[in-house]
């Protein structure tokens, strides 16, 4: 299947040659999973297996995505491949939405159902006397009081930061579409910077929560949902920032054309998705 460069005939579809990256990635995840399990069960050697798995995974991603970028820039992907990428990124993001839905669902369930149940009826009178059940709560058996996270401090600032980053990213996108590559690079750089500021503030917030608010992962259901939701979100911001950084490097390397830059768009979609998740977090975790 030697590809002629340039746009492909409408009915030709690029099929890649055999690749060693998938099997490398499979080994990486095997090490990752077994290492994590060993580590969690008090076998310190597991840590090294775990990190080795991560290292191999990073290696795989570099190699694999590098190859995709080369193929893309080499003109091997025609319109239909481009369309495939669009569909796939969209549905990938949908699967991420469902992952977050599980945790949002847990928060909803706790706030709307289980905590009120625990503080009423037979549960309150027989098992948990005196439990008021007001949110935020660490549950009826809480002995270690904590202060919940205030919405109108760092979280509000972080909301503004992420909203702004959405604007700067769109600005970069328009730069790309209109062939103004300076704007593309500047917009990307600013977006990345905002992402890093966001993450730093969140790290500070966590430190503050542990040190001063006594709000910990084991602070009952409030701590559980708070840290898992914001934590997974933070991981996604990290991934998004890395993706945008790669795009910035690619922009400097002269990649992307006004009519052919799905890599950039995918990163942008992802970033906007992360943004929307944050808005929901801000409302239901911090504010209400």
């Amino acid at each position, binding site marked *: 299947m030697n590809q002629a460069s340039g746009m492909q005939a409408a009915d030709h579809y690029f099929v890649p040659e055999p690749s060693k990256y998938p099997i490398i990635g499979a080994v990486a995840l095997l090490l990752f999973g077994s290492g994590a399990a060993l580590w*969690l*069960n008090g076998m310190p050697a597991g840590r090294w297996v775990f990190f080795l798995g991560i290292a191999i995974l990073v290696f795989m991603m570099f190699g694999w995505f590098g190859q995709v970028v080369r193929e893309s820039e080499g003109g091997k992907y025609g319109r239909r491949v481009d369309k495939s990428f669009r569909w796939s990124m969209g549905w990938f993001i949908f699967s991420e939405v469902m992952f977050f839905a599980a945790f949002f669902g847990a928060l909803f369930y706790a706030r709307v159902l289980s905590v009120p*149940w*625990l503080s009423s*009826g*037979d*549960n309150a009178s*027989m*098992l*948990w006397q005196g439990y008021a059940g007001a949110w935020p709560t660490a549950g*009826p*058996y809480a002995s270690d009081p904590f202060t919940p996270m205030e919405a109108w401090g760092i979280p509000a600032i972080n909301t503004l930061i992420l909203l702004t980053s959405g604007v700067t990213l769109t600005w970069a996108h328009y730069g790309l579409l209109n062939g103004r590559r300076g704007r593309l690079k500047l917009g990307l750089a600013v977006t990345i910077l905002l992402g890093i500021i966001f993450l730093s503030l969140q790290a500070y917030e966590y430190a503050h929560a542990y040190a001063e608010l006594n709000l910990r992962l*084991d602070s009952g259901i409030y701590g559980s949902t708070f840290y898992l939701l914001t934590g997974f979100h933070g991981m996604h911001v990290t991934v998004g920032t890395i993706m945008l950084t790669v795009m910035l490097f690619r922009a400097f390397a002269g990649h992307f054309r006004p009519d052919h830059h799905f890599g950039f768009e995918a990163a942008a979609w992802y970033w906007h998705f992360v943004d929307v998740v944050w808005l929901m977090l801000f409302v239901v975790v911090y504010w209400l």
Partner: protein
Amino acid sequence: EQPHARYNLQQPVTGIAEQINDMHTLMLVICLLIFVGVFGVMFWAVFNHRKSKGAVAAHFHENTAVEIAWTVIPVLILLGMAWPATKTVIAMKDTSNPDITVKATGYQWKWGYDYLQGEGEGIRFLSALATPRDQIEGGAPKGDAYLLEVDNPLVVPVGKKIRVLLTANDVIHSWWVPAFGVKQDAIPGFIRDSWFRADREGTFRGNCAELCGRDHGFMPVVVQVVSAEKYAAWVAEQKARAAAGTPAAAPAAEAEPARIAAAPGEG
């Protein structure tokens, strides 16, 4: 003693179990009729529309009228099934105005009973498997009520509405007496309830019905339904023993929330 059920649900002893039995019979008959109808047609085709018998294939592949019919008729049948089921669901949920309230607590692997209200209030004991280990391991011949016998059964009077509150101390268990049509999960940290009114005396046996660890198969539920007089005598006996400091069994430990709270993090 109950005759053992073989092919069907156990002999019902409460109104609810009776309703469930009837509903099951009804469903079974309806499903059998549909089954015979549908597969009668299919097997007719299987035997008669064979290529080897010279059948030539027709070419139809649509028929709106038929398709509407076989969408609408099942809906109607389902409505007919849903009606009695709805009534029973609502009746099963009505735990109001009990004569006696008992709390059952699931432990790994035994039940604790606690008479909270009504005649017998204050009685509490543990109820664990009474089948000897060597019967299980094959060292001794198995007794009649193998695996379905406990040291201290729950005792209740006949014809009275008994409300059972359920909770658990460690993991989820489920309190189940087939003859009563009662099965209710016991969830640690929560109270759930169910009820029954046994129509006749006897010993009724069931099991824990939610996987709860190693001995999940070895935590039966045994309920003795006795006459009002016998019940009164039993209560008096329990009270006397308690006063003398020699209750029939060790009292059920508190369902200590503290122990549940200690559980998380102790991987």
